[in-house]
Every structure is written in structure tokens, then in C-alpha cells.
């Protein structure tokens, strides 16, 4: 078989039979070319959009929900409506005990502050946080470190600032770590600089939770909590359960839906994932269906070719070509056409992805990021092409040899 493939005559025969009717060869190949182009183009775009989403969500633990107090809309147990229920630090233990499936329960506080360094100043969001935040919402640190347990225990006046804050207060390439900044007239030492993500709720500056409590007299109060569910637990169920516990602790009517506000990241993410899955399914479906149509076109054309070549095949068999030798030539034609068309498809699909990337893939408002197809997918596509090409080539090949040489020779 190997000898057959490296034989110059094999390829000469192939060239002769393909160039004898150039237009037909080209039209045939367009089918497969278009199929693989669509597959690569669509898969790449889907991947690009997926990448965009995952960049937006960053390293956030996606099965998370944020819950905060709003104001009651129903009178309950002697309390008037319009009361503001408070989240308290002491509630946390009770929530954790009563709700199943909570992985992390993180209290946070936030407020707007003025930040000053020398003559530079600006307004930013400040939040008081525990080191745990880094696990739920991975902080992308450019330099330095995030708040640690010691900072919290000792109420240290240290701050982790975002790249925006850094740009506002520091000169380019100036070292920020160890420098002091003033937040509402109080000096804090900068211990880390992080890159802000799209879904970073709660401020450009982080200071230890306890420091925030002390400085802003928060006492037992909490701004909002972030709840992260264990794997396998429904985050919507957790959201409802936590709210119910909070309502109970705050004497809020169980059916009062406005007392606590929430934002369920898990639900949002689920919806995105559903959308992406649908899109990927559609992509594969459309791509493969088109590919199959293309391969069938090749089979069809080869069948016509074989019919036209009945006599030639008859001559070859009369002078000693075995059916296998006839078949492998036709199958080779089929595989050759599909692969060449497929490779053209992959290359032009790649160009389309490059073009899309440069048109829509740059800047913060990009629709997609790094629209690409894994090399494995390309490999698999080529293998599918070879398999399909072989199978579809067998149809005309069998037809070619099913005719008796004597009948083939009689055909005028």
C-alpha cells in the first residue's frame, strides 16, 4: 500500500483523472471546503464568545450569590413596613448552621471614600474584606499580596489597591508597595496592587474587615454577604434558604420578597453556559451536516465519473488490473479531494477567525476574545474527512468493479 502511495504513476493517474474535468473537480471540492470552513468559523467564534464570558467572570466562584438588606414591604409581628433589616455579623453562624451546602460565607462592607496621596486624589469604592475573598473571587495581583489573617486580627491599616487607583495616585513605574496613601484622612500602607476584573463587586480598594469596622464604626453590621455553594448544591436553593433564615432573624414576613436583595451569579452563569452549549451544539450540527453534504457531493461526482469511465475501467481490467487496484485508485481520488478541500477549508476558516479577531476581538468592548479552534478539533475534522472520503469513495469504487469487464468494453 505504501508503495502504491509513493508511486509516481499513482499520482499521475490521479492528476489525469482530476484535471480532465477541472470545473467539476473544483465544484465538488467547494462542498467540503464550505463545510469545514463553517465548522472552523463557527467553532472558533463560539470559543471566542466563551473566552469573553470567562474573562468577564474572571476567576469568580461562579456558584455564588450576593445578598444584602433592602426595606420590608410587609408589616409583620408588630413592625411597620419600610423598615430596613440589617445583616449582622452574629447572623453568619446561624446561617451556616441552618443552611445546607454552603462552602463559603463571606461578609463584606463597602463605602465610597476619598483617597489622597500627596497632591493626587480621587474618589473610589472601599471595601472591608477577609482573606477568604481571594478564594471566592481570585484577585489578579500585579504586585504585592492580598490581605491576610494577621492583618485582620491586628486591625492593620493596610490597603490592596486596583490598577486604576495605582494609575491615579502613582507615577508610571513608581513602586507602590510599602508607600502610604490617605483614605479619608487616615494613612494606610499599600501592600498589593491588583488588576480589576469585569465582575469585581465592591470597590477598587480593599482593607481588612476589622479595620473597616473600627474606622467606620460599623459595629456588628455587614454591608452584604457573598455565599458560595458546595459542588452539587443548587445555588438558587441556597439563596432562598439563606434569605429565609435572614427573614426569620430580622422578623420579616416570609413572603416579603423585597426585604433582601440579591444577585445570583450562579444563575446568570448557568444561563450563559446554556446559551454557549446551545451555540456549540448548533455549530457542530451545522458544521458536520454541511461536511457530510460536501462529502456526498464528492461521492456523487465520483459516481458520475465512474459511469463515464466505465469503458476505461473495462480496458484496464482487460489488460490485468485487479478490482482492488481499480478500487483503491477511486478511493484515493475521493480521499485526495476531501483532504485537499478540507485543508483549504481549515486554512480559510483560520483566516476568517484571524479577521474576526482583529475586527471584533480587541479592546475592552470586544465581542469575542481569542477566537480559535483547538488543534485537536482540526485533527479530528481531518480524520472525519478521511473516513468519510473513504466510505463515500467505496460506493463508486464498488460500482466500477461490479460491472463485468466485458460489459464495460461493449459500452460505446
Amino acid at each position, binding site marked *: 500500500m505504501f508503495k502504491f502511495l509513493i*508511486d*509516481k*504513476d499513482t499520482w499521475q493517474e490521479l492528476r*489525469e*483523472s482530476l484535471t*480532465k474535468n477541472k470545473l467539476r473537480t473544483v465544484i465538488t471540492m467547494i462542498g467540503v471546503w464550505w463545510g469545514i470552513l463553517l465548522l472552523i468559523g463557527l467553532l472558533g467564534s463560539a470559543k471566542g464568545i466563551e473566552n469573553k464570558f470567562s474573562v468577564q467572570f474572571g476567576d469568580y466562584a461562579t456558584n455564588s450569590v450576593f445578598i444584602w438588606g433592602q426595606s420590608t414591604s410587609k408589616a409583620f409581628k408588630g413592625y411597620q413596613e419600610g423598615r430596613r433589616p440589617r445583616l449582622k455579623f452574629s447572623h453568619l453562624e446561624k446561617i451556616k448552621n441552618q443552611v445546607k451546602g454552603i462552602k463559603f460565607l463571606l461578609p463584606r462592607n463597602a463605602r465610597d471614600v476619598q483617597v489622597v496621596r500627596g497632591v493626587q486624589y480621587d474618589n473610589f469604592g472601599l471595601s472591608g474584606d477577609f482573606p477568604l475573598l481571594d478564594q471566592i473571587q481570585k484577585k489578579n495581583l500585579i504586585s504585592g499580596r492580598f490581605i491576610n489573617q494577621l492583618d485582620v486580627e491586628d486591625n492593620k491599616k493596610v490597603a490592596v489597591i486596583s490598577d486604576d487607583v495605582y494609575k491615579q495616585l502613582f507615577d508610571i513605574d513608581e513602586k507602590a508597595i510599602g508607600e502610604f496613601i490617605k483614605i479619608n484622612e487616615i494613612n494606610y500602607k499599600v501592600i498589593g496592587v491588583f488588576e480589576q476584573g469585569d465582575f469585581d463587586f465592591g470597590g477598587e480598594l480593599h482593607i481588612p474587615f476589622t479595620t473597616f469596622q473600627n474606622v467606620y464604626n460599623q459595629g456588628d453590621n455587614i454591608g452584604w454577604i457573598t455565599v458560595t455553594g458546595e459542588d452539587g448544591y443548587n445555588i438558587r436553593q441556597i439563596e432562598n434558604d439563606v434569605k429565609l433564615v435572614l427573614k426569620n432573624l430580622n422578623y420579616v414576613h416570609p413572603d416579603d420578597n423585597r426585604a433582601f436583595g440579591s444577585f445570583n451569579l450562579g444563575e446568570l452563569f448557568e444561563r450563559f453556559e446554556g446559551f454557549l452549549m446551545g451555540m456549540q451544539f448548533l455549530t457542530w450540527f451545522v458544521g458536520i451536516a454541511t461536511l457530510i453534504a460536501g462529502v456526498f457531493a464528492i461521492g456523487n461526482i465520483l459516481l458520475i465519473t465512474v459511469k463515464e469511465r466505465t*469503458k*476505461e475501467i*473495462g*480496458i*484496464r*481490467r*482487460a*489488460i*490485468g*488490473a*485487479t*478490482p*482492488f*487496484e481499480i478500487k483503491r485508485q477511486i478511493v484515493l481520488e475521493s480521499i485526495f479531494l476531501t483532504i485537499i478541500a478540507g485543508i483549504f477549508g481549515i486554512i480559510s476558516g483560520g483566516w476568517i477567525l484571524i479577521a474576526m479577531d482583529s475586527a471584533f476581538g480587541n479592546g475592552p468592548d470586544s465581542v469575542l476574545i481569542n477566537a480559535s479552534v483547538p488543534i485537536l478539533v482540526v485533527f479530528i475534522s481531518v480524520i472525519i474527512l478521511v473516513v468519510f472520503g473513504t466510505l463515500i469513495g467505496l460506493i463508486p469504487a464498488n460500482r466500477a*468493479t461490479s460491472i*463485468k*469487464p*466485458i460489459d464495460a*468494453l461493449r459500452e*460505446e
Partner: protein
Amino acid sequence: MLKINNLHKSYKMGDSSLHVLKGIDLHVDKGEMVAIMGSSGSGKSTLLNIIGILDELDSGEYTLDGIEIKDLTEKKAAQYRNKFLGFVFQSFNLINFKNALENVALPLYYQGQKRKERQEKAMFHLEKVGLADWSTHLPNELSGGQKQRVAIARALAAEPKLLLADEPTGALDSATSHEIMQFLQQLNDEGKTILIVTHEEDISLMCKRIVRLKDGVIMEDKKIKQNRL
């Protein structure tokens, strides 16, 4: 060389069957030049196809060069055709996108010979039929006589034991026909066994033996004095 005993062949035509060959006995020795004569429908083409292993017999015996030709697979049949037989057809049956040399070399390709070897042998046989200067020409650039000579060169290329010619002069004018027949006689003189199917009386007279077929049986089988050209 060739032994046929009590050969029967019938074709199915829908529900009825057509008995084409009804017990043929034919022995051909090495070096003979036999004309198989008969009007159309006499079964002469069927006989040639069976001899050429292009068709299968229903009953009887057929031995070619000591090998019984029976129940062959397509692959075996192809190999025997390639090894034992050379075909010359009325309509030349050259592959029209291959030049003269490539056409002649094709049987050698299916024998699995090396490219250089094939080219040399093909060139040798083209020279033999006097078309060495035309080796790179495509069939449609050749005259009828030239095409038939290329076909003969192709049939000879694999050095077959038996040359089968089906109306080799049927598509040629008489001058060219004589030219081809002269060449076949020459080949026969060199020892090649040749079987020619024809319905032309003058062509048959140029052979050494005439076998007349009628309605599927041999009517006459006689040796004649060859009409030399």
C-alpha cells in the same frame, strides 16, 4: 496451449435463457494462427470472451497453458489475463488521456514492474510496431492504423502466451487492414499464438486455420494454406 472441451454458455434474458454456445470443442497448439469466423449471433464473441477470461463458462472444460480456468476470483482472473493474454479490440480501446507509450506500459504497471523497466519495454514494443517516433502522442493524434498498432504493442508488452484479436481490422480501411494483418502474420512467424475473431473472408484466409461457428456449434474446422502478405 489451449484446450476447450464441451463448452456450454447461456445468457439469461429475463425469464427465458439464450443458449449461445452449445458444446464447443477446440484445441489450439502453440504457434497457431486461428481465425474464428461466424455471422453475428453465432457465438464467436462469446467464445472469445470466455477464452479471454472476460466471461465465465457454464459447463465444460477450459485449460489455458495447462491451467484450468474455472471459478476464478476477479483478482485471479485479472492476473491470468495480465500474464497469459493480450487483447486487441475492434475499437482499439486505448485510454485517450494517456499517450502511446503510457498506453503500452499500462499492462506492465499492473504487473508491478518498475517505472524505468516499463518505459524501456514499452518503447521496445512501440519500436517493433514502428511507432517509436509517436510515443508521446495521444491516441486522438494518431490514425486508425496507428492506434491499432499501439493497441497491438500494448497487447504484446506483457509478453502474453496468446494474442486475442476481436475484429482487429473492423474499423480500418482495406489497405490499413492488410498492414495490420501483415504485422500479425509476422508476429505469428516469431512464434506467437494468435486467435482472430472476424467475419471478413479475406482476413480469415490470411490465417493458418479457420474455425466456423454457427448457432453456437463449430460447423467447420480446417487448416488452410495461409495467404501471405
